[in-house]
């Protein structure tokens, strides 16, 4: 069955995932990236904040492989630390969205009636906001720190999870096994948590990966516009901010191209992994 977590089932899922070439490429890239982000700073003794007074805006050299920015900070160190920030913001804000969205979807789909109307209409209202503008406003009102950026992006992403969970709960609550749980005398709370929730998680897991990728992009866009993560904290978005200057764009590609490439690679990898998980969870796919 679709989501049974059984040894042989799990083996099948993994087998299908490993057979998914793009997903494997994505997974390998992401793993390398995460390892680099975690361990390179201590191995190479990187510091994204320290200023080398001898070189401002210097091209790549032995001391600074990707050169330095206009205030003399090592660009490679900033790229790696920026990855920490970007990935953390991406994953954490997707978690925030998930934690808000899934319970609301579950409640709306399970209780129906007035609860459903209230939750789903609020979701509709949220979805009809131009979210980028809202994020811009909120980020400038609440102050621009990594925490607020994470929370704001996370908070505005809940509707996707709510709608997704709601839709699968609607179909699952009519399943015979839910009725047989009612027939043995289970209380509604238990039916919701033990029967409906686990069976509606598969699409949520997939959506979580896409949401993470999207949050990374949103954070970068915000930082690029100068409203996300603020210097001296690095993030891929605010590294790309350099590219707003024509001279950097034209003459110092080593400053912004690596961040751009990493951003694209990361988002692509995560999306491929999401695709892979989706195909792997689909029992109808041949192995």
């Amino acid at each position, binding site marked *: *069955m679709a989501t049974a977590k059984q040894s042989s089932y799990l083996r099948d899922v993994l087998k299908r995932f490993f057979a998914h070439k793009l997903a494997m490429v994505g997974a390998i890239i992401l793993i390398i990236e995460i390892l680099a982000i975690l361990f390179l700073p201590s191995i190479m003794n990187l510091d994204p904040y320290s200023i080398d007074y001898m070189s401002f805006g210097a091209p790549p050299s032995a001391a600074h492989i990707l050169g330095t920015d206009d205030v003399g900070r090592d660009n490679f160190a900033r790229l790696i630390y920026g990855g920490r920030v970007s990935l953390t913001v991406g994953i954490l804000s997707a978690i925030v969205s998930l934690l808000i969205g899934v319970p609301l979807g579950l409640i709306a789909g399970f209780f129906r009636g007035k609860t459903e109307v209230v939750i789903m209409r609020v979701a509709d209202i949220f979805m009809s906001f131009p979210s980028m503008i809202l994020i811009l406003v909120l980020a400038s009102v609440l102050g621009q720190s990594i925490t607020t950026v994470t929370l704001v992006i996370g908070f505005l992403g809940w509707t996707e999870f709510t709608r997704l969970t709601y839709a699968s709960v609607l179909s699952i609550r009519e399943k015979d096994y839910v*009725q047989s749980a009612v*027939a043995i005398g289970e209380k509604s709370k238990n039916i919701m948590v033990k029967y409906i929730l686990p069976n509606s998680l598969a699409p949520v897991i997939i959506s979580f990966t896409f949401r993470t990728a999207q949050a990374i992009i949103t954070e970068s866009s915000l930082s690029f516009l100068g409203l996300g993560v603020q210097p001296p904290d690095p993030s891929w978005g605010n590294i790309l901010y350099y590219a707003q200057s024509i001279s950097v764009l034209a003459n110092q590609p080593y400053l912004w191209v690596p961040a751009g490439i990493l951003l694209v690679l990361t988002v692509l990898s995560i999306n491929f992994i999401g695709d892979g998980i989706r195909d792997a969870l689909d029992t109808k796919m041949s192995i």
Partner: protein
Amino acid sequence: MEPLLDVRNLKVEFKIDKKWVAAVEDVHFQLKAGETLTIVGESGCGKSVTAMSMLRLLPKTTAQISADEILFQGRDISKLSDTEMTKIRGQGIGMIFQDSMTSLNPVKTVGKQLDEAFLVHGSVDPAEVKQASINLLREVGISSPEQRYKEYPHQLSGGMRQRVMIAMALAQQPAIIIADEPTTALDVTIQAQILELLKKLQEKSGSAIILITHDMGVVAEMADRIIVMYAGMFVECSPTKDLFTNPLHPYTRGLLTAIPRKDMDIDRLNVIEGTVPTLTDMPKGCRFYDRCESRMERCKNELPPLYTRGESSVRCFLFDAKDGE
């Protein structure tokens, strides 16, 4: 002796196009302890709806149940709150569903689900529940129950899953087991085994069974008493032997002659001409009027009440004069 279950004037309505339409009405029956009562009828005649309404398993938004009384062990369960009703479910009245493939939770092992059935009303100590489940699996005839306990529903065959369903219904030793076409999804040899098992378990536990089926063979095998339903109403209720030897209602007679029999050499089976009236367009008089071979003028506009005849009751004007004999 006071009956275990006494249903008086049960009515179930469904919302169709914003109007409430009765799918089942004027249902009266009694069930004695240890008895097997079967409800037979065509698809859509309201058998399952009748059974589900006992446990209030129908969706509240689209179904409305009303009854003068549903006395279970002397207590009127039709007036209970939803919370009180969860205590009746499983413990007082258990249910075996038709399709074992979809009636087990695919993400939990068979064992965990069975444990849940034991634990839900706290009748078994959590430390001992695993052993209780394994014992019950063995009792319903599952080989190597320790192994099966750890497996998921999709790893079991249809017959085994149905046995698990039976085990779940039995876990809390309910006084009544409602079995809604428990063998329809199984092939014939497994059907016989499952019915045999149900009988054996009933002898042991003394539970009463309400068996819903459209298979007259199953009925003959299992039932003490039979209720025949047609278009949402009971048309006849008789002890099994009487029903097969001396069917009263024209519909019952039609049903019995429509069963293929190996001791009679005929080219074509007898059929009951016509179709069942739809829910939204029920005739004013007898619901079987259009298809009845012995219809009379008064059947058209007048709904016959239930007439008692010996141990049977029948909803047909043919028995009007003879009532109370």
